[in-house]
């Protein structure tokens, strides 16, 4: 077990409103495993990642509850100094926008080397660090001579590779990639993703892949967590989510909005309505206002987690007495030409 998060809840408090970004999320990652966190923008994916890294804005963010267990200690309880030893060395993060992620006045080589210098516990010499930087650059597909160049001399895709190099240079145990390829075009996206998977296989790094693109999840992830309004509404292996029968209505809706090359579905079925206002989340299940199969109970009580050998779904449809719901669910999915 590399990382275990239990009932994490985070909210942003300004003097006029309180934004409940993350509500009682729990999941864990094994060594070398990739967990995909999928959800619409504003669902709390990035807040979860920042909570792990301890990079939440001090003045407004507040972790209301939960534990983040990493190598036998709760990250939330660590002091800033202790977190600094972990960040970049044990856990590192790739940010979404490569354009602004690099310091414009330092060379690419310096910025990569800095991560090494910060965590130079094994006493590498200057020359060894340089060699390590060149090696990592080659690894991410950038010629090592370019380590003297500055960020403005690189394209978006190349800059993202540098950011990845920075994140991986210390062989972290856990890599959090916050929508690493959203800002890039498809061809570069494929190269970046395959590179992350190669590196993962090579070093056994576990990865949290945050994305709203199910295609990315399909290619890279072992386990998937569907997040809606700060809650983990469905969690399971890739198979459970893509091939499994039981699904949370939101997951069904998500898959309903993807065009499928095989069938020529006439129209996509986007999920009506918008994400709930995080400052006053609905009673009961937060998806109830948009759920086609919403029942009386959904609006009043928070659904319990239904577990079927690892595949968890937080929906009243799967409450003990509701087995018949399962078949209807499958029928409806079929109709949408899944």
């Amino acid at each position, binding site marked *: 077990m590399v990382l275990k998060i239990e009932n994490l809840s985070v909210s942003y408090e*300004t*003097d*006029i409103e309180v934004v409940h970004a993350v509500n009682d999320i729990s999941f864990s990652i094994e060594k070398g495993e990739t967990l995909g966190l999928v959800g619409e923008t504003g669902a709390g994916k990035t807040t979860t990642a920042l909570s792990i890294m301890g990079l939440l*804005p001090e*003045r*407004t963010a507040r972790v209301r509850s939960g534990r983040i267990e990493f190598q036998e200690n709760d990250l939330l309880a660590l002091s800033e100094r202790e977190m600094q030893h972990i960040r970049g060395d044990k856990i590192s993060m790739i940010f979404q926008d490569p*354009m602004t992620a690099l310091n*414009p006045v330092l060379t690419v080589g310096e910025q990569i080397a800095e991560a090494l210098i910060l965590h130079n516990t094994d006493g590498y010499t200057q020359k060894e660090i340089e060699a390590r930087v060149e090696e990592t650059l080659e690894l991410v597909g950038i010629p090592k001579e370019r380590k003297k160049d500055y960020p*403005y001399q690189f394209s978006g895709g190349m800059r993202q590779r540098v950011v990845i190099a920075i994140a991986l240079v210390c062989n972290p145990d856990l890599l959090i990639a916050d929508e690493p390829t959203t800002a890039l075009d498809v061809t570069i996206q494929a190269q970046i993703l395959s590179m992350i998977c190669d590196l993962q296989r090579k070093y056994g790094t576990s990865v949290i892949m945050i994305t709203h693109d199910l295609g990315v999840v399909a290619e890279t992830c072992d386990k998937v967590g569907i997040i809606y309004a700060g809650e983990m509404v469905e969690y399971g292996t890739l198979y459970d989510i893509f091939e499994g029968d039981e699904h949370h209505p939101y997951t069904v809706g998500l898959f309903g909005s993807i065009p499928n090359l095989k069938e020529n579905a006439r129209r996509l079925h986007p999920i009506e309505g918008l994400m709930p206002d995080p400052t006053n989340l609905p009673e009961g299940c937060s998806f109830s206002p948009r759920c086609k199969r919403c029942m009386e109970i959904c609006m009043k009580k928070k659904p319990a987690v239904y577990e079927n050998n690892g595949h968890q779904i937080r929906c009243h449809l799967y409450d003990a007495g509701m087995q018949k719901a399962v078949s209807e669910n499958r029928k409806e999915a079929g109709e949408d030409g899944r």
Partner: protein
Amino acid sequence: MSNAGKKRNSQLSEIWRRYKKNKAAMVGLVILVIILFLAVFADLIVPYSKCIDQIGAERLQGPSLKHFFGTDEYGRDLFARVIHGSRYSLFIGVATSLMALVIGAVLGASAGYFGGVVDTVICRIIDVFMCVPPILLSLAVVAALGTSMRNLIIAITVSCIPGNVRLIRSLVLTVAEQDYVEAARSYGTSHARIIFRYVLPNAMGPIIVNTTMAISDMILSAAGLSFIGMGIQPPSPEWGALLSSAQQYMFTSPYLLLFPGMFIMLSSLSFNLVGDGLTDALDPKLKD
């Protein structure tokens, strides 16, 4: 209310809400309002005649009930002179800083943004003006245009434009390299629009600070020009002139310096705090 209106209104109330949060900015605003109130209603508070009537017998008296701030060396009521002086000084301070800001922004931004020939020409001309002693520049303005309030503003502004241009150019140099500027150019936005919609707003912090900090210097430098006949003609009161004429009585009647100095400091303090408050409130990135 049309949709845009509603949007604008909500945007303004949003800015006001964020501004209100900043306690220091509110203190600044309160002081500013008081000083502007004093300047606008000066005639109601104390008749203008009181600041030029000289009562020889009551010369150099300390603050008293009859004269709140005491009397100057001519026996004139200092309280009246400070209150009425606010009109000239505030006008000079604000007008010169704004003019220097506008001209500085136009020249500085275009130098920093365009680079090449434009940058060289503007910078070299600015270098010439920076090397000429400011007193000489004001002398030139006096000789060419004569002495009037307008020319006083021009003379002071001329001596502070070079500093502004250089600062704004340096800020623009880095901002102009950002990618969103490149993006804006890509969909055909005109250079002028880019400069004022994309480049300058991103360097607003230091620019506003530089402008509000300059206000007190402007007020003080107006008095410095009186020796070339450029300042406010006596007997009309002006804070800078009050300060410099109080210099000789500094040890024997310190209140002559204290009150005008305090008003200059309070007005500069309020301009700066309000300026800071505005920069923070207007800045989209500053969510928290």
